[in-house]
C-alpha cells in the first residue's frame, strides 16, 4: 500500500488516493493526515522500523503493509489540529513533526522524499541552494543577488518537469531533463520538481510538485521498482558533506 503523508485539506492527495483505489483488488493507497497522528494505534519501536503499527484514514495498519510513502508536507502545522486544545497546538504539531521526521527517515520502504534539512519532504534546500548546485553541475541557472531588504524577483517559469527516480514527468528539452536528474541524484532524492525560464535556465526546484495522475503513476512505478532497495540509513554510513573543522589536536579526554 502506498501511504500519502498529506493533509485533509490536500485535494490533490485525496484525488491521488481515490485514483489508485479505483482499481480492482485490495486497497492500494491511504492518506495519513494530522488527525491520524492523534488517534490511538501508533506503536513504533525505535529499534524495529519494520514492525509496529500506524494510523491512516482513522484505521490502524501494520507498518509491514506499506510498500512506499509519498510525503506531501513540510511539517505538521498547529492550525491543522483543531481537535487539540488551542494552548497545546503548537507543541503537539512540533511533536507530530518530530515523530514523522524520524519515522519517514528510517522506514525500510521507498519514501519520496525522506525528511532532511528540517522539513518532512527533504532535502530542505532553498531555491538558491538548488541554483548553486545546478551551476556547480554545469547547468545554466538564473543568476540572482540576495539582499535582506529586497526579495529577489524571479523570472517567469516557462517549463516545468518532475523527476521521479530516473523518470521524467512533463515535456522538456533534454538538457533540462538532464539537469533535474543530475540534481536529484546529487541530492539523493527521488522526487524533484524543476522550473526553467524561457531561455532554459533553472529558476526553481523543490520537492512538493503538483500531484497529477501522471505523477502519481510514476511514483507507483518508482515504488514498485525500488521495493527491495532500502536506502533509509545509507547516508549515515558516509561522511557528511557539510564543512566541519578538522583541526589536528589529538583526540582524547581533556579533563
Amino acid at each position, binding site marked *: 500500500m502506498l501511504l500519502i503523508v498529506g493533509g485533509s485539506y490536500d485535494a490533490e492527495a485525496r484525488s491521488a488516493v481515490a485514483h489508485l483505489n479505483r482499481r480492482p483488488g485490495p486497497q492500494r493507497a491511504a492518506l495519513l493526515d494530522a488527525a491520524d497522528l*492523534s488517534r490511538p494505534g501508533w506503536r513504533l519501536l525505535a529499534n524495529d522500523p519494520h514492525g509496529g503499527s500506524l494510523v491512516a484514514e482513522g484505521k490502524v495498519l501494520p507498518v509491514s503493509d506499506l510498500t512506499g510513502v509519498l510525503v506531501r508536507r513540510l511539517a505538521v502545522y498547529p492550525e491543522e489540529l483543531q481537535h487539540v486544545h488551542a494552548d497545546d497546538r503548537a507543541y503537539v504539531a512540533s511533536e507530530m513533526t518530530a515523530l514523522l521526521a524520524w519515522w519517514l527517515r528510517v522506514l525500510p520502504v521507498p519514501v519520496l522524499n525522506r525528511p532532511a534539512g528540517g522539513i518532512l519532504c527533504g532535502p530542505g534546500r532553498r531555491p538558491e541552494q538548488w541554483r548553486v548546485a545546478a551551476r556547480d553541475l554545469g547547468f545554466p541557472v538564473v543568476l540572482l543577488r540576495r539582499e535582506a531588504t529586497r526579495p529577489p524577483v524571479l523570472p517567469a517559469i516557462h517549463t516545468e518537469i518532475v523527476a521521479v527516480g530516473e523518470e521524467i514527468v512533463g515535456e522538456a528539452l533534454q538538457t533540462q531533463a538532464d539537469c533535474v536528474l543530475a540534481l536529484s541524484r546529487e541530492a539523493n532524492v527521488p522526487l524533484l520538481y524543476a522550473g526553467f525560464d524561457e531561455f532554459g535556465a533553472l529558476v526553481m526546484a523543490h520537492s512538493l510538485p503538483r500531484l497529477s495522475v501522471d505523477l502519481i503513476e510514476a511514483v507507483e512505478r518508482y515504488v514498485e521498482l525500488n521495493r527491495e532497495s532500502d536506502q533509509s540509513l545509507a547516508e549515515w554510513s558516509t561522511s557528511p558533506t557539510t564543512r566541519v573543522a578538522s583541526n589536528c589536536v589529538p583526540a582524547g579526554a581533556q579533563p
Partner: protein
Amino acid sequence: MILVWGISEDGPVRAVREALAREGEAPLMLDQFDVAQSDLSFAETDASDGWLTFGDKCIELSSITTVYPRPYESARVLKAAGEVDFEAAQHAAKFDDTLLLWLELTPALVVNVPSAMTSNGSKPLQSAMIAAAGFDVPDTLLTTDAQAAAEFRDRHGRVIYKSIGGVRSRVSLLEEQALGRIANGASPLQLQEYIPGTDLRVHVVGNEVFACTIESEAVDYRYPSTQPEEPRIKACSLPAMISDRCIALTRLLGLSLAGIDLRRGNDGRWVCFEANPSPGYTFYEQATGAGITAALARLLRSPEN
C-alpha cells in the same frame, strides 16, 4: 576575520569573545539587538561576493573566515527589547532568513551550519544517528496507545517520557497519570527505558573533548527541586574509545561543536541520549574549569586546520 552572531551578553557568546580578545583577536559581534540597523547582500553564485552592514560597520563578506552563530529569533529579541513595530519585525525576519541562507552557502567555517543543527529537532531521528555512530541508545517506544505504553513499562520496569521534538521538556518517570493522558491524548508520546547510572556531559570542539560527570538525585538534573537534586558537576576523563565515538558522532551530525549527553549505566553500558548542536557549555565550564571556551576560540582562529 571572525563573525559572532547572537546576543552579546549570552554566556557562551560573551565567553568566546573574551577569550578571543585575550588572544588579541577582536571578533565582529553582530548583536541581534541591533538587527534594525543590519543589512546583508551577496551573490548567490559566490557567497563571498557581498557585504554585511551593522551599526556603522560595513564588512566585505570575503574577509569573514569563521562564524559562530548562536542566534535567537530576531523578531522575538526585538519584542524583548520593547520594539513592537511591525516593519522592524519584518526586517528582522528577512535579515535572519538571508543570513541563515548565507551561512549555508559561505565557504567560511560555520560553527555550526544551521542545516546541520536540524537533527536535534527530532530526538528519535538523532538517536538513530547516535546508534549509527556506535553508541548504545535506550529502548524507545513512540506511541499514541495507552496499552502499548503500559506493556512497554511492564517490560522495562521503570520508564521515562520526554518530548519527541526540539522543545525542551523535563524528563519524567512514567506514572499512571501520564498513562491516562495518553489514553485521552492528542499527542504522540516518546517513552524510553530508564537506565540507572551516572550522567556525563561531553563537549566536542573540533577534535578536542571535554567531559564531566553530573551527580544528582533528580531524574532530570536540569530541574532540581531539592538540595540532593542539585547537580554536582566534576571534570572527568573518558576511555579513548568513548572519546573517539563522541568525535565521530559530532562529525556524523555535520557539527564542529556539540554538547553530548551520555550515561554510564550501572551495567557498564555507555548510552547516549542526544547531542546539542548549540550547547550552553558555560554552565558546565564554570563548574569544572575545563577549557571549552579556549578550544572554541582556537577553532575559530584556525579554520584552516
